[in-house]
């Protein structure tokens, strides 16, 4: 039985903001199915009482001293933007309906 359907792949693509085409959907559905069946082997390990590891380095919050340091200027921060206007990132309309 397939681990993942073509419809599920289409749903994932929408969630991930990928406008994949029909041909890609066919290809990805087959490939993701193979990969998911292989990685599902993690389920064979009895690990109910094992704590998860998110990171190999034990993490604690480290706060820096509250001292002003040089950062990017506004122009530097905007320098790679596909579109900028008036010192800001310019984006397409966010709402679907007419303004």
């Amino acid at each position, binding site marked *: 039985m397939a681990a993942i359907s073509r419809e599920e792949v289409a749903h994932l693509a929408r969630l991930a903001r990928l406008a994949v085409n029909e041909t890609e959907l066919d290809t990805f559905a087959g490939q993701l199915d193979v990969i998911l069946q292989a990685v*599902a082997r*993690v389920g064979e390990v009895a690990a109910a009482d*094992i704590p*998860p590891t998110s990171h190999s380095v034990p993490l604690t919050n480290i706060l820096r001293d509250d001292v002003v340091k040089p950062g990017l200027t506004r122009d530097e921060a905007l320098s790679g933007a596909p579109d900028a206007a008036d010192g800001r990132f310019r984006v397409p309309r*966010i709402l679907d309906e007419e303004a």
Partner: protein
Amino acid sequence: MSDVTRATAAELGRMIGAGEVSAEEVTRAHLDRIAAVDGQVHAFLHVDAEGAIAAARAVDSARARGEKLGPLAGVPIAIKDVIATKGVPTTCASKILEGWRPPYDATIMERINAAGMVMLGKTNMDEFAMGSSTEYSAYGPTRNPWDLGRIPGGSGGGSAAAVAAYEAPLAIGTDTGGSIRQPGAVTGTVGSKPTYGGTSRYGLVAFSSSLDTPGPVTRTVLDAALLHEVIGGHDPRDSTSIPAPLPAIVEAARLGATGDLSGVRIGLVREFAGEGAEPGVAAAVREAIEALVKLGAEVVEVSCPHFEYALPAYYLIAPSEASSNLARFDAVRYGLRVGDDGQHSLEEVMSLTREAGFGPEVKRRIMLGTYALSSGYYEAYYGQAQKVRTLITNDFKAAFEQVDVLVSPTTPFVAFPFGSRTSDPYQMYLADLYTIPTNLYGGPAISVPAGLSEGLPVGLQIMAPTMADDRMYRVAAALETVIPPLTPPALSGSNS
């Protein structure tokens, strides 16, 4: 003067410091070599000749003024295109970042520049460091200098090939599941993955943040240790940087070069023995281990029962983190924007941009990660993979109670022909079978040449406990006394 492109970085640094050759001469020799052979190898995505000459002249001027130079001052280096380099294109071999020039340097670049090293340019890779062959670069693959019809490994195939083809004595790679070590193995070079957190990730374009580790790509073990010392150490700008001094890695490499390994205990992972290394790879690795025994090392078998689940766990954890990290490519702050014609909403522009800008492997991993993190599947996939990660870490800790280092083949097969593993993505993933456990644990590991199989290089992997990077350098340098650096066949269009 002999051909400086054949010299080690340590030799070049000494010669430049002594005034036997200028940094500019060394840089020009490497730029000439790139011009002669990179049309065939395609290790570089961008060569910054002007910047390199300027940096070299600055070193020569500093020397003329009587300033004391560091051990690698004036030595050229190639940088994997996933590292942010101020004002110099940084694409991650992706169309989505084509032409992007970062407004800042990665921490490791700041340290490389401060050491007086000379950046030659940016090297090719699998897009966003996802792959084992460079075939997923949006700008065409890099070819292996040993056989131009074969892959140079990946994701850091460009860095490894540049070093193997004498286009650069040193390069930077990044290792998330083996992207420094596997290219090192298949190109006959040295690839060193430091302890996670031992080298800064600040300015490394994130793929899988809990695994990504920058490190050295070189032709000798000493060169790797010297470069590691330049880039390593605590960085307050990386929240997972380890606030402790680096181990004495250069001293360890020099100690190993005496060829004495008496008292060193080496472990062979029982569970790796049955897992599909090609016969030629297994034979070369066996000979390398016998060589280590002759140098005085003691070899014992250890058991790491959960290593067989490392590959599945990795291909849940890394894609999950990638799907989150790559959400930043939203067609707003940098990179490509597609479909902004007044007819499409922001969300549609994002989807069209990401569809046009990402290649197939990146899309696969983003969707795989999205799946593993989605409600209903999270516990069974991502949650379970994190628990397996704990068990793999425990396996390493138990093994290192018995031995000083673990050794294995770096990768199950020698460089494979182009196109032989792209149709079945999981076949490509198997290239990382032996390298991935270390990434999940966070320890250091190095791949060093272990000889040839059917005329192609084989790598031996040496794994050590976290923050004991010195151990792997010692053993690697000792092996080098028996198996010296490999020389690939001459490329056409060059004298050698």
